[in-house]
């Protein structure tokens, strides 16, 4: 997390969004994504009361019939809903009901953004009709749902459109023929290169984009019944994956769209956003607003309070007065691998005061990296240029052969009943359990600092190489048969 500078300037950052995608205004960038939290007007009004700046209505179209069950989740290490999956379709309510309520919401909350998410059959007439009715009802903007990966795509809608650039462009054009409000196209990630559809939307005249929709998924299989989740009477179906697990994928797609001039448009970022810091990251990659679904389904509308408060406090600390002050600042910090400096070198450094002696870095480096974090305190004997060290299993074997006894007397308890019987903790980490990095062998991969449970215990420190910066591109440019390293 970024450090908040001391002596932060005394101002109240302005979170308002102005003229997004050519005309959408709202008090803050936090929108509820088109999903169950925006199913009806009553919900959306409560959400606005809770502090949300906008809402994209649960996709409106010819009503459908849903199945039960509809959701499943990935729990991780006892945490619920690291990833979330659904096989729900668009709104199951009549178009008239949704639009009547939309009018009511807009009447009561004129300053908030209400976006109509739309999906209808792929004919010009159907799209013209729904666009006009939505705008007549008072929508501030339209979001074309080209992203839904399940159910609707079987009917030629949703991602069936979003995966074919020509269709996406055609329908965007139909919509733009009649639309008076900004038109956002919601992109599906279920495609080899998300930019192809972004470009098509731009060519079709879209005013903005929303990304990403959910990712095709099977979340898991019930090992008793052998039926994948969610179970609908003994069968399951491909679903759409979202929640914290998808954020890195979403960030990558957002960045690739915003870095591509032929794709870049005002963007509403979506995918795994749950906190202010997630939101800040999407905005740093160029998003003008952000949308949230899973986190709101998990904890309710109240999460927006800390999102707004936290973003504002971070902006204060950084000296950003408006969202525009930092929007997009990180887009150009992502580059192709070939432009990275090959002469930049860092090595791992363990803070012995912080180390708790779990020795996870040792086994991670031995089994998963470069065998250069050791439990022996001395440099090993040398075989040629290779230093010899006991392998991890020899440490374990030694432990198994130790004779440990319970410290039963008070004296034994303060001193330990023997070398390997602990005195009654807490006591400092024994030196024998504080690993040591052989920095001459360390390749600076970061693995140990990723596994270390203690914050800032393993830091990666720069070692000056004395060499001028040089990229792969520079090193091979002009060479006769330069070959690009494959990026895996």
């Amino acid at each position, binding site marked *: 997390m970024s450090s908040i500078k001391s002596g932060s300037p005394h101002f109240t950052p302005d979170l308002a969004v102005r003229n997004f995608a050519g005309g959408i205004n709202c008090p803050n960038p936090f929108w509820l994504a088109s999903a169950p939290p925006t199913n009806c007007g009553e919900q959306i009004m409560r959400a606005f009361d809770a502090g949300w700046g906008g809402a994209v209505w649960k996709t409106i179209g010819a009503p459908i019939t849903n199945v039960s069950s509809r959701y499943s989740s990935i729990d991780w*290490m*006892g945490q619920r809903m690291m990833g979330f999956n659904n096989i729900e379709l668009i709104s199951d309510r009549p178009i008239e009901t949704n639009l009547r309520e939309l009018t009511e919401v807009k009447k009561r909350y004129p300053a908030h953004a209400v976006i109509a998410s739309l999906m209808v059959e792929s004919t010009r007439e159907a799209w013209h009709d729904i666009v006009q009715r939505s705008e007549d009802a008072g929508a501030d903007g339209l979001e074309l749902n080209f992203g839904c990966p399940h159910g609707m795509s079987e009917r030629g809608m949703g991602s069936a459109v979003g995966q074919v650039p020509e269709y996406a462009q055609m329908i965007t054009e139909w919509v733009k023929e009649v639309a008076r409000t900004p038109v956002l196209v919601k992109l599906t990630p279920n495609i080899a290169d998300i930019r192809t559809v972004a470009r098509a939307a731009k060519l079709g005249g879209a005013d903005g984009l929303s990304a990403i929709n959910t990712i095709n998924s099977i979340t898991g299989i019930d090992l008793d019944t052998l039926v994948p989740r969610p179970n609908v009477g003994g069968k399951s179906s491909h679903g759409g994956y979202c929640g914290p697990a998808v954020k890195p994928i979403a960030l990558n797609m957002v960045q690739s769209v915003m870095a591509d001039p032929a794709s870049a448009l005002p963007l509403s970022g979506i995918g795994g956003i749950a906190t202010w810091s997630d939101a800040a990251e999407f905005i740093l990659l160029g998003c003008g607003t952000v949308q949230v679904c899973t986190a709101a389904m998990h904890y309710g509308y109240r999460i927006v309070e800390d999102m707004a408060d936290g973003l504002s406090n971070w902006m204060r600390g950084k000296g950003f007065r408006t969202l525009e002050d930092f929007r997009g600042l990180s887009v150009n910090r992502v580059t192709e691998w070939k432009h990275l400096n090959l002469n930049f070198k860092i090595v791992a450094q363990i803070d012995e005061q912080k180390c*708790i*002696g*779990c*020795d*996870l870095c*040792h*086994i991670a480096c031995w089994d998963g990296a470069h065998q250069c974090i050791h*439990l022996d305190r001395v440099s090993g004997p040398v075989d040629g240029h290779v230093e010899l060290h006991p392998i*991890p299993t020899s*440490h*374990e074997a030694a*432990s*198994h052969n*130790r*004779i*440990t*006894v*319970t*410290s*039963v*007397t*008070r*004296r034994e*308890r303060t001193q330990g009943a023997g070398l*390997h*019987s*602990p*005195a*009654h*903790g*807490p*006591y*400092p*980490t024994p030196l024998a*359990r504080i690993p040591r990095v052989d920095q001459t062998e360390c390749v600076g991969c970061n693995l140990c600092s990723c596994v270390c*449970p*203690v914050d800032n215990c393993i830091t990666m420190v720069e070692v000056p190489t004395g060499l001028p910066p040089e990229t792969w591109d520079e090193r091979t440019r002009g060479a006769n048969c330069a070959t690009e390293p494959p990026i895996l």
Partner: protein
Amino acid sequence: MLTTVSSPFSEHPEIRQRFAELHPPLSAQAAVVESNRCLHCFDAPCMVACPTHIDVPGFIKRIASGNLRGSGRKILDANVLAGSCSRVCPVEVLCEGACVMHRYDRPPIQIAQLQRHAMDAFHASGEPLIPVPPPAIPLRVACVGSGPASLACAAELRRAGAQVTVIERRPLPGGLNTYGVAEYKLPTADSLREVELIRQTGVEFRLSEAIETTAQLEALEAEFDYVFLGVGLGAMQSLGIPGESESIQGGADHETHGILNALQLISAYKTGHITKMSGAVVVVGAGNTAIDAAVAARRLGADPVTMLYRRGPNDVSAFDFEFDHARREGISFLWHRLPVAIRKAQDGSLLLDIEAVQPIGNHPADNRKSDRFEPVPHSLFTMECRTVIPAIGQSPLTQLLAEFRHITVEQGRIAIERATGQTTHPRFFAGGDCANGGREVVDAIADGKRAAHGILAKFNSAAEVAHVKH
């Protein structure tokens, strides 16, 4: 022929009620959450700190992943009495005391509770202790005593296919797990259930049979290839004060009063022979056993219960958590006091004469506290009580050990080679309290296990020699 090891035992309902569990088990969900806290340390310090070296992160991660059977098996691989251990081990000075979480400013992983979770599931599954019985090997071993040391030795030998006979002088097997450990930690019934699993592996039990004479030992030597001695310690030491030896023990209808030592009280209530006490009780001593006895008296209805100790509160030899527990149970303490005589009052109650004492000098070597005390002048006073419970430690089985020829006994302990449990007699092995001078259940198990491996190693090398000769 006995059907189960517990046939002569049935739990007394009043005891069950008075000695409700101190640490109720974790719910399944809580166990998963707790197991996920474990960092899965490499060469984990908790595992090293466990005398039986249970692979703690290994079994905890199996709970986290939902592999409960694997978790139980992983634990049993290292410790066949892990069910008892999870309930009775002083984990604060063992695995949990070594957990790195202490240095991470977090509470240690509740290793004992997680172990219990896995062991409860194992017991509920009805699976045998040894899933695939090994081929028999021509090795016959007798284990004398049926406490944790002998049981661990016996089970480990059965795993290798040996024939094992456990010989126990008491009617129920299990040693102090059955007769000694506080009921709110480990009920006698649960101890017996664990022994039953060991019996089902094919271990033969001869109960109510004491090995006490040289002749009996020689008979064992003739019948078996090796003998493991896991006979524990002897009776409680007496206070050595006037009036103590007069048998003033009385009571009727499961009630008791008079003078009885801690072990007598504990084994009597655990087997349902005593179910209530009343009036004032004085416990002499401040070790773990003294605390167990004091808490037991309290739970049986005695009031007030006072512990008398010759040193101060900072010198209590009991574990800190036991001392805290005693205070929570409402035990009061009289420090720097020693009893000098016990007299009988007219109404049948006891008059305990007590004197304040102070230590004389300090023990010269290694900073140990002095063992000698002198009375504080004019400090004598008398306490009236219904029961006095001496609890100043168990004495070694001196008389019995004297019968064991060729087996060296040092300071009341059978001398053994630590790594193999071998005594000075090549066919006798020993472990547990009788060899380590009195530690904990898990130490006895570790000793028994090492001795089994020691016996197997001797057997295998003998077999090899025989093979080479052919």
